[in-house]
């Protein structure tokens, strides 16, 4: 498996890896370790705007890189906005092979789960 330079950079530097602590942190996850891909996002939100984001992932390098990039883009975005790019755009940006596109849907699900977890608060 070869990875693009961008994918490698985000896989290696993983900005935003980790979890957030404290009250009002939104957390959402999708996928499962048993199936090989699990992603969790933590969002710190203030008046509907994301202040900080973190992720954890048990996943392949493409998935980790995309999750890291999304986390990096998060600050300042409105919680109700969709992901900064579509799954299609993300696939192109990170040269994700076609067989792996399903894993980006898991990222999308995890993000949505985090964003929507606020609705129950």
């Amino acid at each position, binding site marked *: 498996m070869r990875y693009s330079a961008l994918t*490698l950079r985000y*896989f290696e530097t993983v900005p935003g890896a980790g979890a957030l602590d404290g009250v009002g942190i939104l957390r959402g996850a999708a996928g499962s*370790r*048993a199936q*090989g891909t699990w992603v969790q996002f933590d969002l710190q939100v203030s008046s509907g705007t994301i202040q900080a984001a973190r992720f954890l992932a*048990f996943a392949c*390098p493409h998935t980790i890189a995309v999750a890291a990039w999304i986390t990096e883009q998060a600050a300042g975005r409105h919680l109700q906005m969709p992901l900064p790019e579509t799954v299609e755009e993300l696939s192109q940006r990170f040269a994700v092979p076609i067989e792996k596109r399903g894993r980006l849907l898991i990222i999308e699900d995890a993000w949505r789960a985090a964003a929507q977890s606020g609705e129950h608060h």
Partner: protein
Amino acid sequence: MNSLKVASRPVYLDHAATTPVDPRVAAAMAQCLTAEGEFGNPGSTSHDYGDAAATLVEKARAQVAASVGAHSDEVIWTSGATEANNLAIFGAAEHYAKSGRHIVTSRTEHKAVLDPCRELQRRGWRVTYLAPDGDGLIDPAQVAAALQPDTVLVSIMHVNNEIGVVQDVAAIAAICARHGGAWLHVDAAQSAGKCAVDFAGFGVNLMSLSAHKAYGPKGVGALLVSRRDRGQHGDAAGGARSFAHTHIHLQALHFGGGQERGLRAGTVPTHQVVGMGLAFELADAGRKAEVARLGGLRERLWQGLQLLGGTFRNGAAAHSVPQLLNVSFEGVEGESLLAAVRGRLAVSTGSACTSALQEPSYVLRALGRGEVLSESSLRFGLGRTTCEQDIDTALAVVTEAVSRLRRISGA
């Protein structure tokens, strides 16, 4: 491509996938290529160029035979162990189709055994796939229990390519001989230089060899076809078998120039078989010292990896070649683990994977490892160039990668 790549190449610990050619072997090969060397066609009997090449081919045949306890006339050159496995399995199955259409093999065989067996199932054969125990071992009694009156072939590998476990092929051969109708094929692609191979002593009928796992060139191997007569056994199952007194016969896969006694058509590539001959001679001569040396290095590696916690050694340590260590790491995803070490360490997960989606190793799953751990494993293949420094580098790289990925995964 990979920004982790440092000035020097990564430490190579994938000797089970392939080995570099020994410089002495490369030099011998070079003598059979250009106009200055023995470039003749070994099948050209009408001139000295052909004769000289044929002499080298026969010397190489004797070298291979001597190193594995076979006779020269039992060595059939092939393009590798894949072809040897295919020739053995299809060749015996088709030749003995009238005697029976049942085959016994194991779940942890190489694809070059499993895929021909699956193809035979498609053609109407029945195949029993034996399940190894949690350590990867097949109990010879399992083979005995699986034999049926119409079993014509048993195919069990010698050294497993993913976990290094050594099967007791001599005991299995004895069981097949008692059965009287089942010939035994052994895929010994991973054996040369790693453990003693004694074709006649084991009592095996067919054995596949590959050069490039033993510091010889890729693209050449051999099938050993026993010419020993099989004696009648009083307790033969299934009554008197018409072929009980003869040696094994095969149907060819390639038809053409009549080379290799009609069993394998095609110009014999002098440089390739010369390389294999010398490689096998050298591997056999250096085997004992190398086994001791690499055994020490492998234990150093395993001791170091255990400090990480959540590490599981795959395959029976007491019954494995010292060149291989296969370890599962809890809490890390397999492909990311490979990618994280890639810049500084060349290892694999066991099976060369051609698709973008990494599949969990079927060998580890057959051991009952479960899908996650099966996928989160590394195969360390030690070899002739491996030194203590390489092991320490590997330890540092893997420790860092596993720790980092466990942090990312929250494990």
